[in-house]
């Protein structure tokens, strides 16, 4: 009664400002189901690990290049930061930069998202490079149990990051088509950022359990 007749200040994120944004709520519920998808992968990893015994794990985890993958992880974590700056720009309805490309404080959502895209692409390229090295060193998908769980867990994460890159492309194309940057475009940018942060957090957990917990 009272709630629906009150006038609220227009919030960039909630169109009618008295209702939750359905797209955002739906995205979060979907992401929680994605969490269970990764729960299955983690469970598979730890089952195989306990069945195979510590010797097998010690032998293969020796071959992982920790410094390189740490660099890759840092890039992915920082891409979450740049993504969030893009969201701040989207929340003040600023799609494009005002000023030169070197003036970072004037960047709009598109510049920040383009930078995030490049960092995500760097991560994927790094992962492909790492896979190539591991295959040369004898860890393959069908070679042994360690190879299977390593490639399935990190590979599915890599596919998620690739999906996120596609989502960033879609946001960039959509905002270049849209004549004005409004609530709808801001929502798209924000839900893509939710997904990106989620994939980032999952990677931190994967990195910790695959590379660090030996």
């Amino acid at each position, binding site marked *: *009664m*009272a*709630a*629906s007749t*009150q006038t*609220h200040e227009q*919030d960039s*994120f*909630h*169109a*009618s*400002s*008295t*209702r*939750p*944004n*359905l*797209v*955002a*709520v739906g995205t*979060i*519920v979907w*992401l*929680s*189901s994605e*969490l*269970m998808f*990764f*729960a299955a992968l*983690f*469970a598979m990893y*730890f*089952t195989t690990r*306990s069945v195979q015994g510590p010797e097998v794990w010690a032998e293969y985890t020796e071959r992982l290049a920790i410094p390189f993958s740490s660099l890759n992880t840092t890039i992915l974590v920082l891409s979450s930061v740049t993504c969030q700056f893009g969201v701040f720009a989207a929340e003040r309805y600023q799609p494009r930069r005002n000023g030169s490309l070197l003036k970072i404080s004037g960047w709009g959502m598109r510049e920040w998202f383009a930078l995030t895209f490049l960092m995500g692409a760097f991560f994927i390229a790094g992962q492909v490079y790492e896979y190539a090295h591991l295959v040369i060193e004898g860890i393959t998908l069908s070679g042994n149990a360690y190879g299977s769980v390593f490639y399935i867990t990190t590979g599915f994460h890599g596919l998620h990051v690739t999906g996120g890159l*596609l989502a960033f*492309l*879609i946001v960039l*194309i*959509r905002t270049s*088509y*849209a004549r004005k940057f409004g609530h*709808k475009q801001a929502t798209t940018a924000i839900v893509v950022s939710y997904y990106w942060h989620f994939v980032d957090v999952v990677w931190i957990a994967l990195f910790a359990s695959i590379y660090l917990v030996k």
Partner: protein
Amino acid sequence: MKFGWRLFVGISLFYGITTVIYALWAKEVVGIVALILSTCLAALIGFYFWFTDRRLGSTLPEDNLDGEIADRAGEQGFFSPHSWWPFVVALFATITGLGLILGWWMTLIGVAALMISIMGWSMQYERQ
């Protein structure tokens, strides 16, 4: 959303307590990991509902004990009136999956077509 976040935070607490009991009892890592992530599943939704509830700052009709159905009237969001794109996406997802059985060439075609159709689906109302 007050009821919503309390419900999910409650589920999360339940899973959290179960995790502790399971960890002390079974001492086995797979179940612990699965239960921790179940806790996170409920906590994620609970936190987001709580956060949205705070951000909106007003009592929603569904939380109002004296609320009427009519209180929910108004804009709910954007819903697609009609679209063939989901069918196209499903078709190429099928081809991508079939390719894993029949041959990698089919998967490659499927993935490329899938990406194009996803773009078509998400941009159908904004093309010029």
